[in-house]
């Protein structure tokens, strides 16, 4: 297999990581909504942590994107 095709296949495979990220973000917001539903007064405290959790999980998606872009355009 020539290197260019291998890189393209690798770049596509890197996108598989996004499945885990989707599940993760769903988990974060599910926990956030549950927490606020159980105790509406905790909203201000919990919201900040929820946003932090969302951003950290989304970052994993971006790591996969960077691997993909590295394979396609740099290496």
């Amino acid at each position, binding site marked *: 297999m020539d290197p260019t095709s291998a890189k393209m296949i690798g770049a596509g495979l890197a996108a598989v990581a996004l499945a885990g990220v989707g599940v993760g973000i769903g988990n974060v917001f599910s926990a956030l909504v549950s927490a606020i539903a159980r105790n509406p007064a905790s909203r201000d405290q919990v919201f900040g942590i929820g946003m*932090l959790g969302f951003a950290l999980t989304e970052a994993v998606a971006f790591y996969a994107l960077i691997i993909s872009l590295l394979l396609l355009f740099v290496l």
Partner: protein
Amino acid sequence: MASETSPLGQFTIERLVSLHIGSLDISYTNSALLMTIVVVLITALLVGTTRHASLVPGRLQSIAELSYEFVLGMVRENVGDADGRQFFPLVFSIFMFILFGNLLGLIPYSFTFTSHIVVTFALSLFVFLFVTVVALIRHGIRFFTFFFPPGAPIIMAPLLVPIEIISYLTRPVSLSLRLFANMLAGHTIIAVFAGFTVALGIFGFLPLAFNVALLGLEVVIAALQAYVFAILTCLYLSDAVHLH
């Protein structure tokens, strides 16, 4: 790497004023221009509005005071009241610099300096080294007990300590990569859909509508990424000061 018309062309660094010292290129670039504008704007906002501060603040003074209180609350909550105060200027500078940088990059024909890994890596490497030095000064040799979480069985140490060390050493990488990739991906998608808008002719309103929504999301992400960078700095400082 990218031509003017490709979606990645918006990230090219252009020299506005060419300066060289020997073989060192210290030209004033579009990136440096945006950084200068950001610093001037932040200074004007904070110093200008509080110079003749009124007890009941007007709009701009409110913005300055709210941002100050927001970051101060974040530092106090995450690092601790007495310990955190000394780190407030650092966290505030980082937060405002990244926030304004991200937001100003959304203006058409502007430049997002946080979309370059060298800028974000410089910031995160500085934070990482600063946090490590603070921890070493405060705890001395006992700093290395940080890598063995308290309460874990000693038999797990050969497995746990290398994992902890590796995860500590990847902190500057993850911190910089998160901000860089967010900004790069956001602006690239906007450019790609803008290309579709032109290419589809009469049906170009569909990618245009998507772009409008995406730009709104990018504003939220700009603020969120600044918040995440700042709060992770606070958490790393808290780790350094309290060793868990």
